[in-house]
């Protein structure tokens, strides 16, 4: 290597003079070794996958105020990703490079990690905020076998509301939004025409299909597991749900067999479908991307198989959790509680209006919360979603009586349920053997 730098020899890369090269290398060296200004303050690291620019702004405001009030503490926000967090966490836990506080991951992630001894119980934080400040029952899904809380709710999302176009339904002579499956199918039949589909249901090999279809099984009166977590998917409601889901395929766009969240949302927002199945994101997206239909949209609880079946709404329960083994536990808990201070909590909610719903009782009626264009414009929808989400469920706990399912994450990641849907609906396979195979797979996953 010395030969290359010998004076007198022409440098290999002629356009770059040696001096500039050395200068760049020196600067790069500084950047590479990560030395910036060093700090004597306690540093807290905060991870969240919800890091869109609007949300970042609200986090920065909260952090700035907290740091001003607590001069010895510095909080650093680090975005993580919904897709990539399992890999990041695995590495972080294994190398003991843990963040202090993690928000907006689903409840079943928290249950899973807690069961492996990776999380601190957060009862202190709940008590600091005041257990009665929360909407009733909203933290129940985080209760653990040892009667602590593995995490607490930071927001709710009513993920599978039925969104519909009032104008389209009216034009087809349908007065009220459908309440049962037959009504929904009938409505789709009436209003479908070239250029307008009835629904935007997902049939892709992905998590959305699994999660949505679990909801359909429940709305037929079934469940994936019994309260004691024995596999219960091989039952009549599942077949009913499959039959219905198959019959709805013709009312969804051709590309629905590869739909994930983004496509399904956009199908409704762009006006290509008359109904959609989604959370509150619809409001913000319609306002930005298709304001023409903004006055014609509304939502309701998703129809059930018959009037006798109770409603069931999916809420992934975005939560706040504290990894075990991260330093500065007391400061972390203080910051965690500070996130719920109404002034800043409302700012966070406003960054994703309608989609991240309040978990504190005082917020929905708070005039500061109402002072947001979307929330003010759609009060009925927001109120419905807030109430529905609070009583929502997910695979981590299918009903209030179910034991927490610590394998929910793995079951969704295995695509077992999405595969069932695809086999029966796209491949036209016979339901009975397909369901039996799925039941076997679920049993294996629970045992692993």
């Amino acid at each position, binding site marked *: 290597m010395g030969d290359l730098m010998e004076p007198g020899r022409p440098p290999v890369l002629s356009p770059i003079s040696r001096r500039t090269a050395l200068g760049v290398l020196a600067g790069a060296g500084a950047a*590479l070794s*990560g030395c910036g200004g060093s700090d004597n303050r306690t540093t807290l690291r905060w991870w969240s996958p919800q890091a869109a620019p609007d949300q*970042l702004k609200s986090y920065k405001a909260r952090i700035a105020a907290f740091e001003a009030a607590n001069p010895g503490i510095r909080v650093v926000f*680090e975005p993580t*990703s*919904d897709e990539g967090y399992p890999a990041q966490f695995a*590495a972080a836990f294994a190398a003991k490079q843990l963040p202090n506080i993690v928000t907006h991951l689903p409840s079943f992630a928290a249950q899973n990690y807690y069961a492996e001894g990776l999380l601190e119980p957060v009862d202190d934080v709940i008590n600091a905020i005041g257990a009665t400040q929360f909407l009733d029952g909203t933290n129940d899904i985080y209760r653990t076998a040892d009667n602590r809380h593995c995490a607490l709710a930071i927001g709710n999302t009513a993920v599978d509301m039925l969104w519909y176009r009032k104008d389209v339904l009216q034009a087809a002579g349908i007065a009220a939004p459908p309440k049962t499956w037959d009504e929904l199918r009938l409505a789709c039949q009436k209003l479908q025409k070239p250029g307008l589909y009835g629904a935007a249901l997902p049939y892709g090999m992905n998590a959305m299909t699994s999660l949505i279809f679990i909801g359909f099984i429940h709305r037929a009166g079934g469940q994936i597991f019994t309260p004691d977590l024995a596999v219960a998917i091989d039952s009549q409601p599942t077949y009913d749900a499959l039959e219905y889901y198959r019959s709805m395929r013709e009312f969804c766009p051709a590309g629905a067999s590869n739909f994930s*969240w983004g496509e399904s949302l956009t199908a409704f927002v762009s006006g290509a479908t008359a109904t959609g199945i989604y959370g509150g994101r619809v409001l913000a997206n319609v306002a930005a991307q*298709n304001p023409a239909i903004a006055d014609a949209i509304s939502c309701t609880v998703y129809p059930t198989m018959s009037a006798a079946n109770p409603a069931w709404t999916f809420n992934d329960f975005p939560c706040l959790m504290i990894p075990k083994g991260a330093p500065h536990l007391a400061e972390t808990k203080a910051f965690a509680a500070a996130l719920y201070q109404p002034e800043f909590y409302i700012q966070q909610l406003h960054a994703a209006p309608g989609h991240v719903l309040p978990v504190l009782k005082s917020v929905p009626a708070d005039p500061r919360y109402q002072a947001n264009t979307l929330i003010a414009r759609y009060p009925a929808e927001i109120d419905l979603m807030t109430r529905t989400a609070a009583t929502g469920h997910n695979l981590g706990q299918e009903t209030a009586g179910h034991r927490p399912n610590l394998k929910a994450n793995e079951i969704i990641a295995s695509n077992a349920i999405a595969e069932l849907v695809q086999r029966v609906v796209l491949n036209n396979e016979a339901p009975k053997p397909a369901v039996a195979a799925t039941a076997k797979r679920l049993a294996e996953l629970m045992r692993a």
Partner: protein
Amino acid sequence: MKKRPAWLASLITWPIVLLIAFPLLWMLITSVKPAAELFSTSPTLLPKAITFEHYARVLQDTPFLQYFANSMILATSTTVVVISISVLGAYSLVRFAYPGRETLASLVLFTYLLPSVVLISPLYLMLVSIGLANTLASLVIAYTSFALPYALWLLRSFMAGIPQDLESAAMVDGASRMGAFIDVVLPQALPGIISTALFTFILAWNEYLYALVLVNSDEARPLTTGVMTMLISAFNIEWSLLMAASVLMSVPLIIIFAGFQRHLTSGFGAGGVKG
């Protein structure tokens, strides 16, 4: 050297190039469309209105410029390190004889065969134990090990195509082995070196999974993870911002590469060997 422009070739080539680059064109157009025009069910190529608000938001409301600087440093450092090491290694494989040479070359390629997913955790643990967690240096190290095998083999094949006559002539004239290397071999291998450098730069610029796991702080975060985690989440994709960010990520590279193309033209290699 052909001075006459090749008209026929231009006529065939440019439509194909435009077809290949069409997604870039489409990204550009989308990034200047207002959000209300994004998903029209009768898509139009030309926007009805042009706005630069998305670019403004990306540049002002996000740490985009910091991420950009990080990516530049990361990619450049990786390229410099990889080229330095692999040029020497390739020369060794091509002009020297020592026992185990072929085995060594094959072993180098062997490190490629394992999917990187299973290497992540052990690699991260290793980097943490030497105190490099969360730094760009850890990424440079990781990416260097990804790039070395192909850089070595690619450069080896380029150098193998260089006839030995000139080197031997130089050495007969009294030059040392390394002297002949620098004065004779390197200039002729320049197109190969440039192309290997391009690939390495791109690899370092685009790598996502390792950047996601190895670096978490914004100070050292490169563009890929920075832009993706900010603008893409499970329930929401900020399309307009993403298109603007992607154009900002791509266009500077196009300009840089267009500049380096000059070194890929003939004249460097072909002229050296006569008769």
